[in-house]
């Protein structure tokens, strides 16, 4: 795709340092494409440095994989949803007794992800526990629907809108 440049975590999540480097690279590439003189050696250096970070990210992901299997092993008294104090056992109960094999159904029945953080902290872990308890793939558990307000909102508003 000509004249389109990608930079930052929107392109690929690799952290703040890489976001900055990829921004510089994108800017240099845009300048070059616009016919401006710029430093080719700088682009080579940036690419080399990006590669280093990408390798580091790969290593990090291999060393600390998302512990999907651990969700299944959590004891029943482990608190999954801190806002609403929902335990792994309660989540498993609504899967077993109420057939809640989907994230939003489990939320409706158990309050998992219903509190102040709206599931930002527990959403992924909760989904793994549901998937393991229901013996369904994580994909079919889905994800919690976003509901306004994204962050807690004070009720006191100065004026009612017309």
């Amino acid at each position, binding site marked *: 795709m000509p004249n389109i440049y990608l930079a930052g975590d929107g392109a690929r999540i690799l952290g703040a340092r890489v976001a900055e480097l990829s921004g510089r690279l994108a800017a240099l590439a845009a300048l070059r494409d616009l016919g401006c003189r710029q430093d080719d050696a700088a682009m080579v250096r940036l690419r080399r440095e990006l590669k280093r970070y990408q390798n580091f990210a790969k290593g990090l992901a291999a060393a600390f994989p998302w512990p999907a299997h651990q969700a299944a092993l959590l004891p029943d008294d482990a608190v999954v949803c801190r806002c609403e104090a929902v335990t792994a056992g309660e989540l498993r109960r609504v899967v077993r*007794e*109420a057939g809640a094999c989907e994230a939003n*159904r489990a939320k*409706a*029945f158990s309050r998992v992800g*219903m*509190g*102040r953080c*709206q599931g930002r902290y527990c959403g992924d872990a909760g989904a793994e526990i549901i998937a393991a308890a229901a013996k369904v793939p994580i994909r079919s558990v889905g994800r919690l629907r976003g*509901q*306004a*307000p994204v962050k*807690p*909102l*004070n*009720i*006191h*508003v100065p*004026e*009612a*809108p017309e």
Partner: protein
Amino acid sequence: MSASVIENASDVVIVGGGLVGTSTALFLRRRGRSVTLLESGLVGQQASGTNFGNVRRQGRPLHQLPLANRANPIWREMKALMGADVEYLESGHVRVCYRSSPELVGELEAYAAEACQAGLELELLSGDAMRRRFPFLGPEVSAASYSACDGHANPRLAAPAFARAAVRAGATVCENARVAVVEKNGEDFRAVCDDGRAFRAPVLLVAAGAWGSLLSSQFREPVPVVVRGPTMSVTEPVPYGVAPAVGVFTKASSESVYFRQIPRGNVIIGGGPRADAHLDFRRAKVDPRNTLHQFHQLGRLAPALARLNVIRVWSGVEGYTPDALPVMGPSGGTGGLYYAFGFSGSGFQIAPAVGEVMAELIDTGTTAIDLAPYRVSRFGAA
């Protein structure tokens, strides 16, 4: 093999898995009727699951109190009946009016006198007695009517609990079964889903809420249902301090607001203008302007609550009839066809009794409850 052999047959097919459909299924099973319930999504997902959760008799039309009274013992025995806790709390209901509408005090008094005749005891309070009893009420509130034996419950749990109890009692509940066509062939009704599944029974109950008229129209009995979504909000949890559900009695719909606190601390808020809702997408929008309006009205009713933070808003698909009464009873033109839909945002408390009455009506052909106000023919069809 003929088509009728492979079709799923039962005594009654119920279309709609809200509180009305699921409770009718349970009570029909208790009368020994075989039941198949067809739900387009998941049971209790729309109006039944997203409403405010008011288990409130006071304020209902007086002619509806016998039905509402019949629901009261069912709510009380819900745990034993369902084998599940639907968080029903008989903690009272307060209905208040504002100083700006002094004529409403007389209406509260007249209603209390007549409700008492119909078996609903209400206590009227004003002045210091009201402030001592309900210190959270704002200075604009001039009088209150207290119903000790009303309360509230968790709507997300109620209909699914009824559905599970119905299944345990032998009913067949099919979720994700979206009925496209209903027709009567000879003695039997046939409900055909958009995935081709067909269900057959000599009795059909349309309990499809806001979608009800799509089905009743197929029997030439359209009902002018207006589809809207309520404005609902919930706050972060704070120490439990308000036991009863509280609502404003007003003739100005823009002033309507109500709230209840649950023992875990959250305050649930409803009322005020409703937003667009869509039958085809099965979704209702929350209009943020309505939410802000609701906040403002809540500040009048209970000023201290305006210091709290709202953590979540929601809505659901509700069906409103022109007179805000449901369609409930037999079809005007087709034998074996029954309706119970269009509960107009006030079906939650009565729904278990509606289930019991519809099961009685289908099983015996009659019921002690007067269904005249709910006749489908009042909309001039058939």
